[in-house]
């Protein structure tokens, strides 16, 4: 074809093909009407458009180069691709295995990875371990990893929480956004991950989505680690799992990765957020060039950036890791200071620098009155610079002003003092007012942050398996940071309240009923602090019932460990506690929090004052009544459910209770605990409780001889504990409680002659005997041998049966002196059967 002719056709045809079908012919006639031959050719071609589109819609490799919508991947069905990245394709997926309908984003990695993962089981193990760690990251600003799989011939993939949001930079374009505030939230998420020893390694704006609510969500946490484990086999390092534009020098060099790596990337992200400009574009540069540039890269100054912010950004992106902020929280703190107009750490001159600016502007004024300097320093203290730092700066400032005075001469200073002093007074007055307002706002901010910290230590963190120690760490760190503050008078009560609550919470975390830490010393220390703080608070306003309640609760919590029954049956110290609690109730009979506190008191009184069984039962029934009164308290529902379930559990165990009532209480306890687990599947505390209530219901059935009803209960109780022990191998509480339910499951199975179940019990018992801490004792091993004996007997293996039987009776002989046996029936049954076997 002649090239001019083709160019004409090509041009018009391309235009025509962009038009609706019915307009194309008219368009071509209009444009090419002057040349019959060309027009005919173009018309012929345009008529083929529909067929052509169909024919070429899927190339020969298309079917093989991508997953199709509707494909299944485990329980997930792919819906549509969400995008491609350097590391693979992300699909929107829907859960289709009958579970609650749920959407997720699935990241599929290049299949080249499946080779190494399939071939090397070590590598696969590490992949799965890492996945478990990541799955525990639960933070409102982090997209959760729901699952990950590799091997088995399919592409390695990560199933992540599906986040409906827009990419960070796009979001910033939508209007007026508090950029620093948003950035601080991002920092909060990264900080949380760091506290869990997880480094992101590939932070970039594309990995941060912002939801409609304005909440940022960080994606792909820690996936870089799985893919690029420096300790791991190099063959898994498919390609660099980070983007050059946001990578830190140590990443580019292939050096060691630390939290400073994320600090660096955050610096680049903040720069982009503030200026709308990507700090650098290196992704298509040659590696050698990048290596050279990374060593001298410094963020440029820009109009939108204040000197302070630039200093912060440069400190975050220092080439040497040692010169960066030591942690994300330090970076965040400085960014918050920029936002609040406070001096930043990144400029070491800090306050002094500001003072010298002020001094430069008002040399004489300042010289005239070194009081001014002191005042400003005072403001710095007021404005919550840490006490030590302010002290140092004040000293320097005073020294400086003295030098100034000397230099200028006191006489000259005095001469100029009159008029200038007046202005100074006005100036200082303004600073003081501003300072106070700012300080107030800052206290409010701080307290707000702290409040949410307490809440998250209580729920978001500590309810997770293994989260208690993280919760303690978070709270203690936060406490140490705010304890140095001097709140303004208006903020003081709030300040005290939060600290008091934090210490009470810490005491619970250290040694409470659901704690898996069991550190009584830590618990006592915090209880003491809490009491002192509540007392101070109460001193502010005695009419405040809630503070009164807090104080009473804190004192009682500290004392209750020591309170016991009294031989004479008298009330003893219980009398005064009862008096105090009833008094509080009298002051606020409708206060739900008070009702709950009183309920809790009666629960403890019933527990620790067990002289008369009837009294105990009455106390607990009373406790239930008060818990019900307090149950509708907004936000307190979960705690009340927990307390009520616990009380029902105890009531089910009260001696002398009619069997029917016992069963009723046990069933109610189980119902409440199931409700709690249903409300929040991640609540490890609720799951532990459920394990126990299912177990005690089984106990109630067993005592009545309903072995077949008890048997599955024990199994469920054991399996819940096993699940918790596997996901949290450091949970002392769970490890301690592994043996009981599985032993009883075995006992039930043996009595029911359910040999298949007994075989299962033996297997689980062997696992539990090894896993539990302390490890299984003689009695448990004896049971194990006894069961094995029974099973051998059933299999007509008389020799084996006798061997196991003898071993069991030998162990029981050793254990004979022990009085602690859950159920003497078991022991007797064992002995009898073993003797039978041995004969």
């Amino acid at each position, binding site marked *: *074809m002649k*090239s001019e002719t*083709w160019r004409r056709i*090509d041009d018009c*045809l*391309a235009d025509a*093909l*962009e038009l609706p079908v019915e307009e194309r012919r008219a368009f071509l006639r209009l444009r090419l009407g002057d040349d019959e031959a060309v027009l005919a050719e173009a018309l*012929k*071609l*345009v008529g*083929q*458009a529909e*067929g*052509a*589109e*169909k*024919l*070429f819609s*899927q*190339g*020969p*490799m*298309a*079917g*093989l*180069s*991508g*997953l*199709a919508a509707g*494909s299944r*991947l485990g329980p997930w069905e792919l819906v549509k691709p969400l995008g*491609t990245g350097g590391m*693979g*394709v992300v699909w929107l997926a829907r859960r289709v295995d009958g579970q609650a309908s749920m959407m997720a984003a699935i990241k*599929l*990695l*290049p*299949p*080249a990875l499946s080779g190494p993962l399939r071939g090397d089981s070590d590598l696969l193990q590490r992949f799965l371990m890492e996945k478990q760690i990541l799955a525990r990251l639960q933070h409102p600003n982090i997209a959760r990893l729901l699952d990950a799989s590799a091997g088995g011939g*399919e*592409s390695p993939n990560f199933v992540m929480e599906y986040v409906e949001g827009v990419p960070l930079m796009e979001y910033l374009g939508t209007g007026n956004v508090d950029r620093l505030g948003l950035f601080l939230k991002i920092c909060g998420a990264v900080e949380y991950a760091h506290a869990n020893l997880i480094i992101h390694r590939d932070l970039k704006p594309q990995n941060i989505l912002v939801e409609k609510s304005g909440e940022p969500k960080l994606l792909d946490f820690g996936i870089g680690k799985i893919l690029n484990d420096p300790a791991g086999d190099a063959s898994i*390092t*498919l*390609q660099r799992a980070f983007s050059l534009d946001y990578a830190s020098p140590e990443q580019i060099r292939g050096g060691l990765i630390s939290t400073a790596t994320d600090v660096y990337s955050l610096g680049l992200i903040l720069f982009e957020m503030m200026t709308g400009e990507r700090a650098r574009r290196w992704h*298509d540069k*040659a*590696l*050698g060039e990048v290596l050279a540039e990374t060593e001298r890269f410094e963020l440029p100054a820009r109009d939108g950036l204040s000197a302070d912010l630039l200093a912060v950004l440069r400190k975050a992106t220092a080439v040497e890791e040692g010169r960066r902020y030591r942690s994300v929280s330090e970076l965040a703190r400085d960014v918050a200071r920029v936002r609040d107009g406070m001096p930043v750490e990144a400029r070491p001159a800090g306050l002094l620098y500001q003072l010298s600016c002020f001094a430069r502007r008002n040399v004489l004024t300042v010289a005239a009155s070194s009081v001014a300097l002191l005042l400003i320093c005072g403001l710095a203290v007021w404005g919550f610079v840490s006490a030590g730092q302010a002290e140092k700066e004040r000293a320097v400032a005073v020294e400086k002003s003295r030098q100034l005075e000397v230099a200028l001469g006191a006489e000259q200073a005095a001469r100029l003092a009159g008029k200038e002093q007046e202005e100074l007074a006005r100036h200082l007055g303004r600073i003081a007012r501003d300072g106070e307002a700012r300080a107030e706002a800052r206290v409010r901010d701080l307290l707000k942050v702290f409040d949410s910290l307490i809440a998250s230590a209580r729920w978001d963190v500590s309810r997770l398996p293994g989260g208690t120690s993280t919760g303690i760490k978070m709270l203690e760190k936060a406490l140490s940071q705010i304890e140095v503050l001097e709140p303004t008078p208006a903020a003081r009560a709030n300040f005290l309240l939060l600290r008091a609550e934090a210490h009470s919470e810490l005491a619970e975390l250290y040694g409470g009923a659901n704690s898996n830490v069991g550190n009584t010393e830590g618990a006592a220390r915090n209880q003491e602090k809490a009491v002192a703080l509540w007392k101070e608070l109460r001193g502010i306003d005695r009419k405040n019932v809630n503070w009164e309640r807090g104080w009473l609760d804190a004192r009682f919590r500290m004392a209750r460990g020591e309170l016991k029954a009294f031989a004479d049956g008298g009330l003893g110290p219980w009398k005064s506690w009862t008096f105090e609690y009833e008094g509080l109730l009298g002051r606020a009979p409708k206060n739900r929090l008070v009702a709950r506190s009183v309920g809790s008191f009666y629960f403890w009184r019933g527990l620790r004052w067990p002289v008369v069984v009837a009294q105990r039962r009455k106390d607990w029934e009373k406790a239930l009544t008060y818990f019900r009164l307090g149950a509708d308290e907004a936000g307190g529902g979960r705690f009340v459910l927990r307390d009520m379930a616990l009380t029902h559990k105890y009531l089910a165990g009260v001696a002398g209770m009619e069997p029917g009532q016992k069963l009723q209480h046990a069933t109610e306890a189980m119902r409440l605990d199931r409700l709690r687990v249903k409300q929040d599947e991640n609540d490890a505390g609720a799951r532990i409780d459920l394990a126990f209530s299912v177990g005690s219901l089984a106990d109630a059935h067993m005592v009545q001889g309903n072995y077949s009803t008890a048997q599955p209960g024990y199994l469920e109780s054991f399996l819940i504990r096993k699940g918790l022990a596997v996901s949290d191998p450091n949970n002392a509480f769970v490890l301690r409680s592994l043996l009981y339910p599985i032993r009883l499951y075995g006992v039930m199975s043996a009595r029911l002659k359910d040999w298949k179940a007994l075989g299962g019990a033996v297997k689980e018992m062997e696992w539990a005997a090894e896993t539990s801490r302390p490890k299984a004792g003689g009695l448990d091993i004896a049971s194990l041998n006894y069961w094995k004996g029974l099973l051998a007997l059933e299999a007509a293996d008389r020799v084996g049966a006798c061997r196991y039987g003898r071993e069991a009776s030998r162990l029981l002989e050793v254990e004979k002196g022990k009085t602690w046996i859950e159920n003497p029936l078991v022991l007797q049954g064992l002995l009898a059967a073993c003797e039978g076997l041995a004969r």
Partner: protein
Amino acid sequence: MDYAVAERLLEEWGRGDRESLDRLMGLVYHELHRMASGVLRSESTTNRTRPTSLVNELYLELQRQGRLETQGQKHFFSIAAFLMRQILVSHARKRNAQKRGSGFGVESLSEVMETGFDWREQPELIIALNDALARLEEFDPVKAAIVDMRFFADLSIESTAEALNLSPTTVKRHWAVARVWLYEQLQGV
């Protein structure tokens, strides 16, 4: 293999000297061939778990091996797409030799398309397409290159645009015209 055509495609590739280009072409051809024949041999299309196109995959693989340090992704895509076509055509030739005799008319083409169409089942059509592309290359090499990338290498509009230094809109326009022209050419097969 027609190095001359490939060279024309890669004229802009300033950095690559002739020798390293040759070596790379050889390597890419070999690898693509290995990967493609694995895929083409398997008849089952139900187990589609490849997240990314073969060419993308190979790119990542070569980068992992450190063989693509200085060359950019776009140049690689140009070569690979061209080679992909060679591989598919030679595969089609082999298959065609095995199943002679089933010609294609205008009606049957539309008919086949109505009932679901798989290029891998139509070796003669791939050969005809290759011939048509050779003609297209004579007077519009850019379109031919786009067809290689979009159709044979299954690359996205965006990747294609980046590799050829064109805007996505331009690629879309070329691709639309190329399709109708090729379809027209295939009518007579």
